[in-house]
């Protein structure tokens, strides 16, 4: 080749590659011909090299499903087990380009068992080819995949009615299937659905028009893939960059490395740390190719900021005008991907952007029947099921709805013991009304206020049966602390119910709300620099954990006032046990409502053996050595 011809060849090829990459997948039910279709696209685009064709011919003899002919599916079904069984197990990624566009295609498995692999392939795509076997029509798996495609936010769909050769290329059959499909999926948020009748095996309407279906006048598959415009108008989406890694080669450089997931940032622009509310400006946008004036969505950069503020991996740097939500409760769609069912209440690790945080599913609002898209009640979620759930994280996380931004709204759940990725979620909305009220940054902080008082603030939480001696011990302890010059406050169950919580009763929901409010009030007081003592029966592990999660390491000190029921009942200082036994009080802890003793209390005082005074001394000793 001459130099000039070379230059032309490279330029042409580079241009092809640059011309909007299209990422698409093939999906649908078992054996509908997905892999054959990809094989056909590669084959007809002359992208198969001679040595690969030779091995395909050999493979087809050995494993082929079509007699003596070459089996195009074997071009993509690359695993031994797949070739032996003639099925696809896991997603294969192939790359090809034509004169008009370059493509990354994910060929996904049809078997229900491997739906998670289909979701893996679909999560990064902009278009889905949903295949339907013309003989079989719309099946449950067709609809399951369609629903996942919809949930994952893919807006462009091609309904490829395949194996038309086996139904005599009949137009009526095609129309019937298309009508069925449209009826079954009318509720799904697809922007564009194009049905094409084709035969992957023989190539009709794949890359070449079919003279066996003259009644079809629409686009051929490849033609459509080359032309379709999947670009979304990002408008003027606000800037966001999840911090991946802090770059600190030496004392004079501190940069925050990450990829812009939304909007644009320029040197000099103001930014805010979404969670802490701290604000500053970007002073430099660093890359190894030199500083940039600006960075836009998709670019991997390192930001240097005007001021030294506390930022770590997991923080999200955003534009002040449009801050994402920050909350510890939100509603999301969840696709369950593991054989072991989802258990509400169980802790998983949630990964969203660069944030890794323990999370629980607090409730399943409803499950979704993929056939009808109808809501169904459910208590757990099995493999391949989809539900709309409420989630709770141990700390607030930063997010936007998935429909606004995949990178800030998509998350995975990881099982803490097996480390498997068990769920994929799409955030719908934050649940606390306060979630859009951002923390206002204040200059005087907890450390400053604590230093002024010369103490380390904390919350000492007393739990135990009614009449165990919580209030008595807490009182003595507070006296002793004040005598030593400490600044304290005692929150007592009965007192709080006269004011802050006088609107609450004793139903389960009200009990939880009671403790939640006390936890938040205690948090403010600890923030103010106080040593707070809280005395509440708080019989449930979950609620106590909820309060513990509000506090930093070492700030929450759980004191278990361990008094046997018999002892408390004999004391019965308020006469409540007698009433409860008589059935005059319902849901009384220890009588007809359980008490869950703490598993890892910082201090346990056995009041059966100790006086209240000695118990207070024991707690004081703990505080002195730990604060």
């Amino acid at each position, binding site marked *: *080749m001459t*130099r000039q011809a*070379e*230059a032309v*060849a*490279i330029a042409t*090829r*580079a241009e092809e*590659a*640059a011309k909007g*990459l299209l990422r698409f997948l093939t999906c649908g039910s078992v054996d509908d011909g997905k892999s054959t279709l990809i094989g056909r696209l590669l084959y007809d685009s002359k992208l198969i*090299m*001679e*040595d690969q064709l030779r091995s395909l011919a*050999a*493979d087809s003899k050995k494993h082929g499903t079509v007699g003596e002919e070459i089996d195009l599916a074997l*071009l993509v*079904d*690359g*695993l*031994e*087990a797949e070739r032996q069984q003639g099925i696809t197990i*896991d997603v*294969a*990624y*192939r*790359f090809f380009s034509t004169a008009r566009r*370059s493509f990354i295609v994910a060929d996904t498995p049809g078997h229900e068992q491997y739906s998670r*692999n289909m*979701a*893996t392939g679909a*999560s*990064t795509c902009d278009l889905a080819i949903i295949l339907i076997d013309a003989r079989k029509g719309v099946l449950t798996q067709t609809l399951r995949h369609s629903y996942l495609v919809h949930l994952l936010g893919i807006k462009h769909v091609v309904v490829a009615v395949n194996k038309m050769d086996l139904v005599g290329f009949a137009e009526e059959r095609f129309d019937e299937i298309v009508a069925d499909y449209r009826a079954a999926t009318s509720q799904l948020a697809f922007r564009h659905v194009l049905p094409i009748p084709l035969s992957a095996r023989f190539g009709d309407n794949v890359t070449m028009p079919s003279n066996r279906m003259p009644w079809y006048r629409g686009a051929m598959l490849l033609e459509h893939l080359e032309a379709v415009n999947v670009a979304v108008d990002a408008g003027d989406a606000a800037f966001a960059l999840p911090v*991946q*890694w802090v*770059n600190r*080669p030496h004392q004079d*450089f501190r940069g925050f*490395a990450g990829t812009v997931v939304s909007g644009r940032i320029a040197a000099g622009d103001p930014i805010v740390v979404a969670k802490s509310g701290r604000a500053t400006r970007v002073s430099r946008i*660093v*890359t*190894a*190719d*030199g*500083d940039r004036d600006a960075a836009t969505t*998709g*670019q*991997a950069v390192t930001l240097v900021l005007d001021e030294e503020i506390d930022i770590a991996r997991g923080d999200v740097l955003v534009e002040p005008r449009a801050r994402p939500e920050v909350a510890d409760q939100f509603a999301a769609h969840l696709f369950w*991907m593991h054989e072991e069912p989802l258990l509400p209440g169980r802790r998983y690790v949630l*990964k*969203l952007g*660069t944030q890794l945080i323990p999370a629980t599913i607090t409730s399943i609002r409803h499950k979704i029947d993929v056939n009808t898209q109808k809501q169904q009640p459910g208590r757990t979620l099995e493999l391949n099921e989809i539900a709309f759930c409420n989630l709770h994280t141990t700390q607030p996380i930063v997010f936007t709805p998935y429909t606004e931004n*995949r*990178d800030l709204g*998509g998350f*995975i759940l*990881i099982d803490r013991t097996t*480390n498997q*990725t068990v769920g*994929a979620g799409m955030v719908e909305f934050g649940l606390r009304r306060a979630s859009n009220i951002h923390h206002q940054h204040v200059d005087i902080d907890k450390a400053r206020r604590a230093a002024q008082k010369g103490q380390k603030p904390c919350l000492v939480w007393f739990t135990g049966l009614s009449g165990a001696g919580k209030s008595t011990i807490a009182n003595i302890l507070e006296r002793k602390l004040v005598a030593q010059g400490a600044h304290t406050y005692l929150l007592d169950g009965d007192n709080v119910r006269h004011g802050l919580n006088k609107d609450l009763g004793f139903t389960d929901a009200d009990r939880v709300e009671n403790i939640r409010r006390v936890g938040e009030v205690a948090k403010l007081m600890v923030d103010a620099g106080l040593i707070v003592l809280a005395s509440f029966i708080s019989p449930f592990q979950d609620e106590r954990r909820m309060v513990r999660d509000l506090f930093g390491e070492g700030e929450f000190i759980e004191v278990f006032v361990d008094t046997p029921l018999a002892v408390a009942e004999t004391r019965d200082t308020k006469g409540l046990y007698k009433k409860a036994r008589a059935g005059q009080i319902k849901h009384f802890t220890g009588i007809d409502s359980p008490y869950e003793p703490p598993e890892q209390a910082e201090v346990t005082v056995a009041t059966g053996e100790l006086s209240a005074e000695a118990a207070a001394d024991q707690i004081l000793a703990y505080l002195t050595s730990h604060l």
Partner: protein
Amino acid sequence: MTETRQDIVHYAARFDPAMPRRSSTLSSHLRALEAESIFIMREVAAEMANPVLLYSIGKDSSVMLHLAMKAFWPAKPPFPLMHIATGWDFRDMIVHRDQLTSALGLRLLVQANDAATAAGSTPFNTDSREWARIMLIDALKAGMDRHGFDAAFGGGRRDEEKSRAKERVFSVRSAGHGWDPRNQRPELWHLYNTRVARGETIRVFPLSNWTEFDIWEYIRLEQIPVVPLYFARHRPMVDRGGTLIMVDDERMQFKPGETATERLVRFRTLGDWPLSGAIESDADTVEQVIAEMLSARTSERQGRLVDSDEAASMEKKKREGYF
């Protein structure tokens, strides 16, 4: 005395923060691939305790190393490089490796199966699959175990081969380093699950979505130095049943009647010289290499004697712990 590779010297100077930066001329497509790879590398650096970059000196490794230099700049990549050496690498590769890593100031670990070499195994007396198993797979596993690495970057691309096309970007390996292709973790969006049990490791493929063309085009535009064996030169070659083997040193075992003749050749992939087939070519610039590749009718792996053994050889090797 080996000559100093001036291209390497100049290349290393580009990463000196005191030197002027060189502006990028990449297409939007390559820029997107670059950004994705950088993202992947930063995730590993941030979440794994002890990662390593498997550096095999070839074109893919050169690109991967370049991306690592960019991802953490102005800091150095926060992980060492490890080369699995068989003792039969082309001499030019070792020169490239040593000059490049020292010019960039990177930590290089070399791992080899010395016991097998001491026992007299050579590529001439060992079946090629067995050779790959003991010299590459076993040595790789030993290197991972010896240094306690929990993650290793590899330069594999999905367009290389059918079983690679099936692999995740973050590919979990059992305590024995085996891959279980039937039970891969789902991998949605760009949310990589890096949690592993004790003893398990992760192989990470930041170049998963690159094609051979992308690699060469990137090398051309970013002016990344590669081993000169990729470019056509007159080299002493032996024609063995259609496969052109280069006589790289005196250990060559000639078959009766064989002699070396000078031929104008280059290599599309590099490995151990007795096991690497060259192609006749006069392409001696990156531009010519790319042009030649675009008109090629065979794939790059064709020259690899190790892989042509059987269709499913790559998957088998991966199950045994290979990259």
